């Protein structure tokens, strides 16, 4: 080993706690990068393979009833590779152990063999035998939620008749990687399940022999999806087609894409914060080392070492610290990536979620971490390399100080001498103080940002499911039906209040923009399903015209007063222009609302309803559920409370885990910054502090001088961090302003309190660790030597 390298290792050992603190900050950046991006790549790769191998369709549509003879015509649309026609129906389920009814989606399987598209992956059991009655395959998510397996059965109301579904196999489908019922906001594996059944058994029950009501297509390479959709819509319109959509509007695909997008954001933002802080810390610590080693540098140069050799020597020190952080970060990142992938298997159902680490990712993170370290070290390395030896032999001249702004304002008599020392120290190097503050502020911001999603979600849940929607259940009918049905629901046991609604699938057009949505027809002054804007004000529906989500208006580029073309996708399919009466700031979906009577008039129909919102007597719910499960007309029942609870339970644990990591990350940053800043201050000022001790100052008094600077830096950092956190949250809210969700910019006061407290505690702890070194201050040595 060369002498220079020996110095390197000894220096590194000497500054090990500081080096470790920096390496850990760096490791956090590397770990979040590796975790996010490796999981992202794994998800993407797995999804791609899954889609390919199981032939996930590109275009989807449903219709009322079309003869099988239409299928070859669909296959002839230019660009269409394969066509799979099928039957898809939603039914009411009665599952043992679940008092409320669940919704089952039954999808037909072709007479012989596997479906061409959206093939199934058999997890357990066997394929169905079309000759045996009532055999079904069930989605794994639903099976797991109810601990169902081959040999178990559930009861279903299939076209007004109760039928037993015998489970023979548990499967996965690329269509339901994320299992959620379209139109619902929350996934609920207990109350929504997907089943596959022989076409020959399903078709007769719905009078669909020789016909189908659902089509999926796979496109050939280079095909134009919009053009295929246009032609498909033209062909299916006569058969009650409700409009086709591509993968981007397929619910499961879209959720997964959103997740991938979020991972990507996380993989960029978090590492940027951590590596920025690490670079700053390297700059501060290395700067101090070079200051204390001036004479050593001079001697080395006097012996004949070149500028470059000296520069490289100090650069190596930075790179070795970065190297430790890199190795640590990669190990932790891979471990966390594994865990995250594991966690994803709870939500996203893949045959195998193969966690794979791309060597290119390691290469890129090595490059990034090295660059961050080099940027941090650059200034100091430069100074060391070009320090003239003769000048370096002399100790650095005493630092120049000036009166601070406080004194220039004539306020000095209110400030004690120790306080002035603190103030001048800060004023002499404002950039260092400002960057320290910024570093600590980032810790605060990380916490605010982390808790923001919890706060926003809490608020959203309460807003949507307590304030706006006050029903206990939503009952939907198989077909739009007469107002009598509502009367019938009102007389079910335990039902207290009923509010009918009419939902009509439509395509809204304005210029060359269009969107598929449902127009929701609501009673005049709804009591259960209320329209509220983001300020929780009740929005009254006008007698005519639409009230639409602000997001929908943006997508269609319309403003209140303008007309949109409404193309109805069911019944007589009227097409008319309707004015947009008002916009609604809401948090989920792209919604359009109308007064129910206006909608019925528009549809040229009598008092037709699609379903009803109800409130119930909780004591009689069991009786009500039993009745609903056997009511043929009822296609589905959504029990708000149950869905909400199951969702909360699922995410509660993850939220807790996320909060733990946020706290850990914030503490790493705060401790890294405070500890290193304090160590550097101590090194710069130990002689001064020892002098004060000799002059009769107590430990507490000199501690307050050393830590006072940090206290001020931290005190400034906290409000700054809260503001940065708020800003980042606002950016995030804008970034997440999608058709599916709008995140309200709601940050609870307790989040600010929590962020500030955590960072203060972390700062105090690191301050105290450094303070212990003051007890070991060598008073006599400080007096005997020059700085």
């Amino acid at each position, binding site marked *: 080993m060369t002498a220079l390298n020996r110095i390197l290792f000894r220096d590194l050992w000497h500054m090990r706690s500081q080096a470790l603190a920096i390496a850990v900050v760096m490791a956090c950046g590397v770990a979040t990068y590796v975790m996010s991006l490796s999981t992202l790549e794994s998800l993407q790769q797995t999804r791609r393979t899954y889609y390919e191998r199981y032939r996930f369709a590109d275009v989807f549509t449903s219709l009322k009833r079309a003869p099988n003879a239409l299928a070859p015509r669909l296959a002839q649309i230019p660009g269409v590779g394969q066509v799979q026609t099928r039957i898809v129906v939603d039914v009411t389920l009665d599952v043992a152990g679940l008092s409320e009814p669940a919704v089952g989606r039954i999808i037909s399987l072709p007479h012989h063999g596997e479906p061409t598209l959206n093939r199934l992956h058999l997890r357990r059991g066997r394929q169905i035998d079309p000759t045996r009655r009532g055999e079904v395959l069930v989605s794994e998510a639903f099976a797991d939620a109810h601990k169902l397996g081959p040999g178990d059965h559930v009861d279903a109301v299939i076209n007004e008749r109760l039928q037993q579904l015998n489970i023979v196999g548990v499967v996965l489908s690329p269509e339901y990687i994320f299992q959620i019922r379209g139109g619902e906001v929350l996934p609920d594996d207990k109350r929504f399940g997907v089943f596959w059944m022989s076409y020959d058994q399903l078709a007769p029950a719905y009078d669909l022999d020789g016909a189908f009501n659902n089509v999926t297509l796979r496109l050939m390479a280079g095909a134009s999806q919009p053009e295929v959709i246009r032609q498909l819509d033209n062909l299916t319109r006569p058969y009650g087609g409700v409009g086709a959509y591509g993968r981007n509007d397929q619910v499961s695909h879209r959720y997964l894409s959103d997740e991938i997008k979020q991972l990507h954001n996380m993989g960029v933002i978090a590492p940027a914060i951590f590596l920025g802080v690490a670079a700053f810390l390297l700059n501060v610590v290395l700067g101090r080392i070079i200051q204390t080693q001036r004479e050593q540098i001079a001697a080395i140069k006097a012996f004949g070492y070149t500028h470059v050799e000296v520069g490289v020597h100090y650069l190596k020190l930075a790179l070795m610290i970065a190297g430790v952080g890199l190795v640590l970060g990669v190990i932790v990142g891979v471990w966390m990536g594994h865990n995250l992938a594991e966690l994803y298997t709870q939500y996203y159902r893949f045959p195998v979620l193969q966690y794979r680490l791309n060597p290119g990712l390691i290469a890129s993170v090595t490059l990034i971490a090295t660059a961050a370290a080099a940027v941090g070290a650059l200034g100091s390395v430069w100074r060391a390399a070009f320090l003239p030896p003769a000048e370096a032999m002399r100790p650095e*001249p*005493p*630092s*120049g*100080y*000036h*009166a601070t702004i406080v004194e220039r304002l004539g306020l000095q008599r209110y400030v*004690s*001498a*120790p306080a*002035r*020392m603190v103030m*001048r*120290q800060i004023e*002499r190097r404002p950039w260092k103080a400002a960057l320290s503050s910024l570093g600590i502020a980032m810790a605060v911001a990380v916490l605010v940002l982390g808790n923001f999603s919890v706060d926003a979600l809490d608020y959203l849940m309460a807003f949507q499911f307590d304030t706006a929607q006050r029903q206990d259940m939503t009952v939907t009918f198989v077909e739009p039906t007469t107002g009598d049905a509502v009367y019938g629901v009102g007389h079910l046991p335990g039902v207290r209040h009923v509010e009918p609604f009419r939902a009509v699938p439509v395509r809204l057009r304005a210029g060359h923009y269009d969107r598929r949505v449902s127009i929701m027809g609501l009673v005049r002054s709804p009591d259960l399903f209320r329209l509220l804007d983001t300020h929780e004000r009740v929005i009254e529906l006008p007698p005519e015209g639409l009230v639409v989500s602000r997001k929908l208006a943006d997508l269609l580029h319309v403003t209140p007063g303008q007309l949109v073309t409404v193309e109805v996708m069911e019944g007589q399919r009227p097409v008319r222009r309707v004015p947009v009466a008002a916009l609604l700031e809401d948090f989920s979906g792209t919604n359009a609302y109308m007064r129910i009577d206006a909608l019925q008039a528009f549809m040229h129909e009598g008092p037709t309803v699609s379903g009803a919102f109800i409130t119930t007597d909780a004591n009689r719910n069991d009786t009500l559920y039993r009745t609903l499960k056997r009511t043929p007309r009822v296609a589905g029942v959504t029990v708000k409370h149950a869905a909400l609870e199951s969702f909360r339970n699922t995410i509660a644990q993850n939220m807790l885990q996320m909060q733990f990591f946020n706290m850990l990350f914030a503490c790493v940053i705060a401790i890294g910054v405070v500890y290193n800043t304090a160590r550097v201050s101590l090194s710069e000022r130990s*002689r*001064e502090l020892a*002098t*004060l*001790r*000799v*002059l*009769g*100052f*107590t*430990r507490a*008094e000199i501690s307050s001088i050393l830590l006072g600077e940090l206290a001020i830096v931290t005190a400034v950092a906290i409000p700054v961090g809260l503001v940065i956190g708020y800003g980042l949250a606002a950016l995030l809210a804008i970034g997440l302003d999608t058709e599916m969700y709008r995140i309200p910019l709601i940050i609870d006061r307790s989040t600010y309190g929590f962020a500030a407290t955590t960072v203060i505690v972390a700062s105090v702890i690191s301050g105290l660790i450094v303070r212990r070194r003051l007890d070991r201050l060598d*008073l*006599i040595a*400080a*007096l*005997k*030597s*020059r700085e």
Partner: protein
Amino acid sequence: MTERQTAPADPEPPSTPSIVGDAVFVARGLTKVYRMGEVEVHALRGVDMELYAGELMVLLGPSGSGKSTLLNILGGLDVPTSGTVSYQDHDLTVLDDAALTRYRREHVGFVFQFYNLIPSLTARENVSLVTEIAADPMDPADALAIVGLGERLDHFPAQLSGGEQQRVAIARAIAKQPDVLLCDEPTGALDAATGIVVLEALERVNRELGTTTAVITHNAVIAKMADRVVTLSAGVIADERHNDRKTAARELSW
């Protein structure tokens, strides 16, 4: 600064110990053993000595003779391995760290070879650093006037010469009106001319304020301005003598 102009300078220093009173410090059988790695260093090997109220004592000796160790023990910065040292009625060897800190704070003024000024504080503020925690301090400006720096109150250390910095250090030491002033090689880092100006300041403080003063030096010339000279050699007192006739600092040269 007014004081310097109005106080008449003594034409001739008194020929005998002027206001020497009772012993302020009494040390008996002081030994100090350091461990330097695997080697034991005997810095003091049984020292008996006193320091009397109001006197100016010079502790002379080559480097390594133990004089700094002795001064540090008197100043409450260090404790002896064995032996006793008492300050007035207090046994310094039994005091804990907090009590030693209080002792330094209330009774001792220090002047160091390298001044040890706080670079971020002006001359006046360096002095007020001490007066703020003292029971009966003088005005910082007055203390600086005594050492001849009445004009440079608001200069930072970086704006002062070495001699001026050391005089600020003396002002800082005397401003709290200490009972004893301990100076460790106060001219060690200065050239002769500047050193003499500093010594004059010390002489003046001892004479006008009656502050008991001990000065450590390896420069034998300085011994001529003392009331009493104690010479240390290899950890023991080799010689002790009274100056029948003190030489004024300004007449010294080396």
